[in-house]
């Protein structure tokens, strides 16, 4: 399967390799020379508008970074402070196919930033071994879509290492990073959001950031955490999301959701790119319906922050959960049933899930597949008049 990816990356037609065109939409908009291209070839506009976080004041000097640069910055900080830390995966040595590890091999040496053979189960197994020996292992899976060959190592091994050994051994120093989520044209195997598969597995932590500041702080927390973590990076934001990110290390706590916008009529819960969609929906709801929405970024999928979500729902009485992944067995189901149990007397409308359909992630139908702002807006209308 990885051979297919490589084909796209390395030998794709000269005008549109996968990654290049992956951010083609952004580049097109920014580059006036591209406006002369025939309109029929122009891709569908991005389904979200990135909203930068406020500039953090408490962590020292900041620099403008996009998401891939903030990931590099977090990796850089960790390698600088932890001599045992190593980064490995497919094609990380030259900087990674998404540029997340650029310059690190030159700075820290080839024994610390290195390519592995093309084998996901090997990468995760190897990372577990590095961590079990006491060093910090930062493994990269090139796309979240290709994490499944490592499912056994993650679910049966990494997640259960500490428990089964009675805490004699653990692989808490392991972090697995993987590009995640839709990208406009990634089709079946460059678009998936597999967090719910892992959310059913005690022992793991699963984290998804919504932007560069979040990515760096949460990733550094994953490194510092004494449990195996999976860190999913919304690849559509790698270049599209730009904001002021502190250059020094800082930590954003795991298992804590963040209320990114306060409201009183309805609670929105999302993670990753979808947080930006929900922010737009909140604006639309306010402008067109006069509905005040509270937007919450869940940030950590497992173990998730039940308290923050339930507190919000107790206040608003309505909950809309949205994710890109298919609806059946998606993580929204878990949130929904938990909130229903804990906030039954406060709920004024059925909890609604606006998610991907129960199909594989399609290529040319992506604009129809994703839970975009119009689908979410329609759900708001129905819920508010329930």
């Amino acid at each position: 399967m990885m051979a297919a990816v490589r084909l796209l990356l390395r030998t794709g037609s000269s005008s549109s390799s996968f990654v290049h065109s992956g951010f083609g939409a952004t580049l097109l908009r920014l580059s006036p020379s591209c406006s002369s291209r025939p309109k029929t070839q122009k891709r569908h506009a991005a389904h979200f508008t990135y909203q930068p976080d406020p500039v953090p004041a408490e962590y020292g000097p900041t620099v403008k970074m996009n998401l891939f640069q903030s990931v590099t910055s977090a990796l850089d900080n960790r390698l600088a402070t932890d001599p045992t830390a190593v980064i490995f995966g497919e094609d990380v040595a030259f900087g990674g196919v998404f540029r997340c590890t650029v310059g690190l091999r030159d700075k820290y040496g080839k024994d610390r930033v290195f390519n592995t053979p093309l084998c996901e189960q090997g990468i995760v197994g190897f990372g577990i071994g590095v961590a079990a020996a006491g060093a910090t292992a930062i493994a990269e899976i090139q796309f979240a879509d290709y994490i499944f060959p490592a499912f056994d190592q993650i679910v049966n091994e990494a997640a259960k290492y500490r428990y089964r050994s009675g805490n004699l051994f653990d692989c808490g120093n392991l972090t697995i990073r993987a590009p995640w989520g839709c990208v406009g044209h990634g089709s079946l195997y460059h678009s998936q959001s597999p967090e719910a598969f892992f959310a059913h597995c005690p022992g793991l932590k699963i984290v998804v950031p919504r932007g560069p500041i979040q990515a760096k702080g949460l990733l550094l927390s994953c490194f510092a955490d004494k449990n195996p973590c999976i860190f999913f990076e919304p690849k559509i934001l790698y270049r599209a999301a730009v904001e002021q990110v502190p250059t020094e290390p800082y930590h954003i706590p795991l298992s804590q959701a963040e209320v990114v916008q306060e409201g009183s009529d309805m609670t929105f819960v999302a993670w990753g790119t979808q947080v930006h969609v929900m922010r737009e929906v909140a604006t639309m709801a306010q402008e067109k319906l006069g509905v005040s929405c509270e937007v919450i970024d869940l940030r950590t999928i497992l173990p998730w922050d039940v308290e923050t979500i339930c507190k919000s729902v107790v206040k608003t009485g309505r909950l809309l959960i949205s994710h890109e992944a298919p609806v059946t067995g998606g993580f929204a189901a878990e949130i929904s049933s938990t909130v229903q149990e804990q906030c039954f007397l406060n709920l004024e409308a059925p909890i609604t899930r606006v998610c991907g359909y129960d199909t594989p992630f399609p290529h040319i139908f992506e604009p129809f597949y994703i839970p975009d702002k119009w689908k979410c807006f329609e759900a708001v209308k129905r819920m508010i008049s329930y």
Partner: protein
Amino acid sequence: MASVRGLQKWVGIGFHAFRQHSALNSSRVLQQRAFRLSGARCQQPFDSSVEKPQFPGASAEFVDHLEFIQPNVISGIPIYRVMDRQGQIINPSEDPKLPKETVLNFYQKMTLLNTMDRILYESQRQGRISFYMTNYGEEGTHIGSAAALEPNDLVFGQYREAGVLMYRGFPLDLFMAQCYANADDLGKGRQMPVHYGCRDLNFVTISSPLATQLPQAAGAAYALKRENSNRAVVCYFGEGAASEGDAHAGFNFAATLECPLIFFCRNNGYAISTPTDEQYRGDGIAARGPGYGMLSIRVDGNDVFAVYNVTKEARRRAVAENQPFLIEAMTYRIGHHSTSDDSSAYRSVDEVNYWDKQDHPISRLRHYMTACGWWGEEEERAWRKQSRKLVMEAFERAEKRLKPHPDLLFTDVYNEMTPGLDQQRESFWRHIQQYKEHYPLDLYEK
């Protein structure tokens, strides 16, 4: 020249990014370019003037006739041996010349394991423990290899390597505690019997999924190499487990990442009921090693000195040269696969008897010791009695001991107790208080 085109493309993207994001200062972009170019220099020099193969993927000559490479399975990799079935040293220059105390220790550890196996196997038959797997016939591979390692070398095992722990001094009480899952079990009673582990003895806790430990061993060996600690990793697995994808991953990672690691395959002829001709068609496991660029050897697993010699040399070179070694120890699984298996359903009793009576690692070492005048009937009788007493005493202590506190069901899932799990624990206790007569609480620590 796809890769060259790829390089140009990346440089192009780099500049796009540069235009958009002032954060990327120019020196960093230049650094990226230099880095990529130096990466390109690592490719083999291209010289079209010479009529020699220039493919980056292999170093080889052209050949002008069509010939497939034949696997050699009839006359396979030879089996290294130090003593014959009567315990006679075949080639004196290969005699490790171990002192009497060492050899006696080998023998006592092998037989103590054998005694423990018999008692625990029977105890499972009586329903006193839920499950067991014996080590019959493979005692020599455990003791011989364990003796050739340093005590701080890290061991990853499959499940039929209890002799390695025995050699390292794991107390009988802890073997029993694990099988009984009592309050003394280091694993807190969470895993099935024979899933031993010991931090102090550098023996990584066993897990049931086969071959998962192979790439893990490679990672651990890589970490130890970076520590520069003069330690090696040894990783045991059966020939059946070698069919798993993780075995391929482990071999290839260990070779390409130059890990000080010994892969030790116990080829005992069966994976439960599956004979080796349904497991592979090549020349066993050892023949795969060279395909991964790994130094490999095949050894008589019933010859404890042969196992000792190959492990000793592999260990020395693995640490000195930072490269993996593959040892395939040929043995025979004399016992059933486990207590949940009746092996007479798929193999003959005669076959089993041959290995048990005529080519057994324990009897072979005993022949050697007898020939040296180090062991006689008297010693044998006394040791049998003593070892049985030691095992039975530990057995009885383990059986009387309470099971671990039920709270330990909830701990160590994460390093810390999560709020959600803590709530489940509290709800569990509320339920238990209300329905305590329906649960075996009196067997557990309070």
